């Protein structure tokens, strides 16, 4: 439970964010902190330190939320579970010095002629085909040794994630800071195939075996719905299921229309029918797809934008969804403080009128501490909170 002293602050932040994400006019422009692994380095730690001692996560999030003004943070999560995957003997995450890197060469683990096998029995396909290819331990014949190693690996996973619930509870009590994303992995089926099974070969698959790709997407969609547990959760204010969108920037509009958009609409509809909001993370530049995005049901989605012209986004999509983004991360890193403040002021002057906009830097801070200059970031977040008042 949130303590009495901070109750009002917490509720104000939730109300402010919830109003803006649904296209309304809050009391102030909300400041959203999409802060991830960056916080460890800001606090003098590395990702590997957090993997060794997951409770350091609490210390880092508390410090960052004391030092910077936010109305909402993205989520609280440990770094990728690289030690767990190492015990399994595979996976795409690798330790690289003090950081954890994603090795894209490890994605490809499904052949083009296996779509029908996937669609026939997805769980069986995972168990018998994909897991043995991804992880050496799953490929071994049964033995007591294999059994013991798998249990040991799972215990490592539980060590990393077992403390997360208590960390979030303590963090919320002490900081009065809400966090945004339901931990649910609400992934688009086309992205599941591209990101984890076929890599960019899916782009030739949609030419050579389009119906098989669509059939596989149908099956994976059901799997994602089950894994997300939407039907068993209760909606909360100022929270959303995130769809991290990767493939559309590589798709022609007509291919987006056939292979991606119907599933995106289905996922939005499925969540909204149960009272949930969806956050679409438009990774990359989506300007070639605005005509489609305007067809999304109004204010069932809040869109987080990365490389688009945020003013054009507000103009084209502001009547369809709440908009998150705008602050150039490169400027926060390399610009002078006044340059950053001028940029933030111009964004507020241009985007705040009419509501439906949430201030945020345009990149998630998920790397090794070099993405932003902390002094600039602190000055900007405080400025937006003070200047971005609706009168």
């Amino acid at each position: 439970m949130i303590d009495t002293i901070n109750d009002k602050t917490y509720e104000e932040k939730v109300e402010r964010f919830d109003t803006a994400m649904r296209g309304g006019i809050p009391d102030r422009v909300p400041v959203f902190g999409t802060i991830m692994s960056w916080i460890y380095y800001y606090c003098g730690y590395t990702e590997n330190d957090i993997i060794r001692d997951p409770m350091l996560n609490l210390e880092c999030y508390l410090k960052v939320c004391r030092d910077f003004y936010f109305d909402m943070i993205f989520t609280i999560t440990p770094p990728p579970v690289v030690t767990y995957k190492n015990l399994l003997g595979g996976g795409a995450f690798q330790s690289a010095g003090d950081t954890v890197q994603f090795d894209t060469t490890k994605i490809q683990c499904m052949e083009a002629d296996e779509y029908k096998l996937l669609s026939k029995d997805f769980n069986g396909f995972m168990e018998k085909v994909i897991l043995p290819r991804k992880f050496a331990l799953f490929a071994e014949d049964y033995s007591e040794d294999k059994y013991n190693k798998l249990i040991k690996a799972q215990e490592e996973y539980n060590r990393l994630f077992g403390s997360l619930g208590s960390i979030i509870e303590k963090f919320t009590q002490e900081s009065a800071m809400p966090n945004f994303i339901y931990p649910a992995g609400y992934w688009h089926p086309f992205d599941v195939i591209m990101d984890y099974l076929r890599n960019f070969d899916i782009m030739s698959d949609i030419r050579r075996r389009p119906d098989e790709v669509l059939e596989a997407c149908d099956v994976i969609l059901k799997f994602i719905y089950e894994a997300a547990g939407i039907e068993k959760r209760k909606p909360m204010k100022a929270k959303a299921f995130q769809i991290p969108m990767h493939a559309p920037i590589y798709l022609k509009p007509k291919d987006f229309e056939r292979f991606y958009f119907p599933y995106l609409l289905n996922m939005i509809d499925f969540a909204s029918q149960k009272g949930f909001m969806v956050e679409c993370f438009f990774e990359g530049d989506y300007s070639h797809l605005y005509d489609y995005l305007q067809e999304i049901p109004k204010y069932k989605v809040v869109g987080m934008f990365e490389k688009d012209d945020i003013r054009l986004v507000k103009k084209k999509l502001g009547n369809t969804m709440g908009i998150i983004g705008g602050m150039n991360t490169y400027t926060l890193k390399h610009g002078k403080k006044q340059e950053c403040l001028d940029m933030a002021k111009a964004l507020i002057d241009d985007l705040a009128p009419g509501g439906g906009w949430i201030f945020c830097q345009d990149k998630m801070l998920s790397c090794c501490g070099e993405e932003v200059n902390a002094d600039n970031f602190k000055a900007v977040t405080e400025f937006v909170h003070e200047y971005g008042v609706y009168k």
Partner: protein
Amino acid sequence: MEDKQKNDVILDRLIKEYMKITDEYGYKTAKASFFRMLLF
């Protein structure tokens, strides 16, 4: 018990271990969530 059945027992045990630290939405959801986690 055949090795295939033993592997099924292992998977079942892993999912039950996984359920100890995930939201309690039942075995079917936990199994899907477990597979999704291993995709990543």
